[in-house]
């Protein structure tokens, strides 16, 4: 039986996780190309928020949301390279929630939170591989201001 992963001093405190829940990003995450092991952490009281914590660097953490909580009719399109990075069978059409999870990384904007839905993080539930999509046609920003709903944004 694999020993649990343990990482002290993370943003979430000392973190212990089952190795089976660890994600492998073969290419890292853009901006953090050497960060290949990540752990998704969901705190029931804080749903739908997902923490994506590096399993190697205690200070590296992302806040994320399932993309459909931002854009209900979001459709993911994977390229051959994406299938390869996720080690998914290219002959299947992966179903979000069943085969893959699509997470939007949250970042700051001038007056709230912003996310780029052209670059979601995709997680294969079959292979536990993770991969961030490359926006081929520019960013697709959504913005959440204080007390308002998510809306499309140019910046």
């Amino acid at each position, binding site marked *: 039986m694999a020993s649990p992963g343990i990482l002290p001093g993370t943003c*979430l405190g000392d973190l212990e996780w089952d190795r089976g829940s660890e994600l492998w990003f073969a290419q890292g995450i853009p901006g953090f*190309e050497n960060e290949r092991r990540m752990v998704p952490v969901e705190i029931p009281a804080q749903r739908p928020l997902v923490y994506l914590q590096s399993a190697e660097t205690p200070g*590296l953490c992302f806040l994320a949301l399932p993309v459909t*909580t931002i854009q209900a009719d979001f459709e993911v399109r994977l390229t051959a390279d994406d299938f390869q990075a996720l080690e998914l069978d290219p002959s299947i059409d992966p179903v979000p929630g069943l085969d893959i999870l699509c997470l939007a990384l*949250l970042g*700051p904007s001038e007056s709230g939170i912003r996310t780029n839905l052209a670059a979601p993080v995709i997680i294969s539930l079959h292979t536990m591989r993770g991969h961030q999509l*490359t*926006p081929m046609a520019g960013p697709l920003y959504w913005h959440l201001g204080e*007390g308002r*709903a998510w809306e499309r944004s140019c910046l």
Partner: protein
Amino acid sequence: MFVVRRRVGERILIADDIEIEIVEISKTRVKLGVRAPREVPVMRAETVPVAAENRAASAWASSRIAAAPAQLMKLLQNLQDNSAQTVAYVPDQ
């Protein structure tokens, strides 16, 4: 700009330790393989702005979680309110 014609399997070298190999050529695309030292970032050009966004997102997330839990709770409340509205919405039949 260095311009050169290459066939599948042929390589280009940059300095002593970066190697680009032509893996596959199709009608509209070329598949490249890049070998480079671990400390040399290799990425698609389109990924550069995403890398900047990710660095900002990570710094922002870490500061929200570690230094400003009250702000995180406010954010969470906002997200949950927003999510609840989305999930609870059922159109009239």
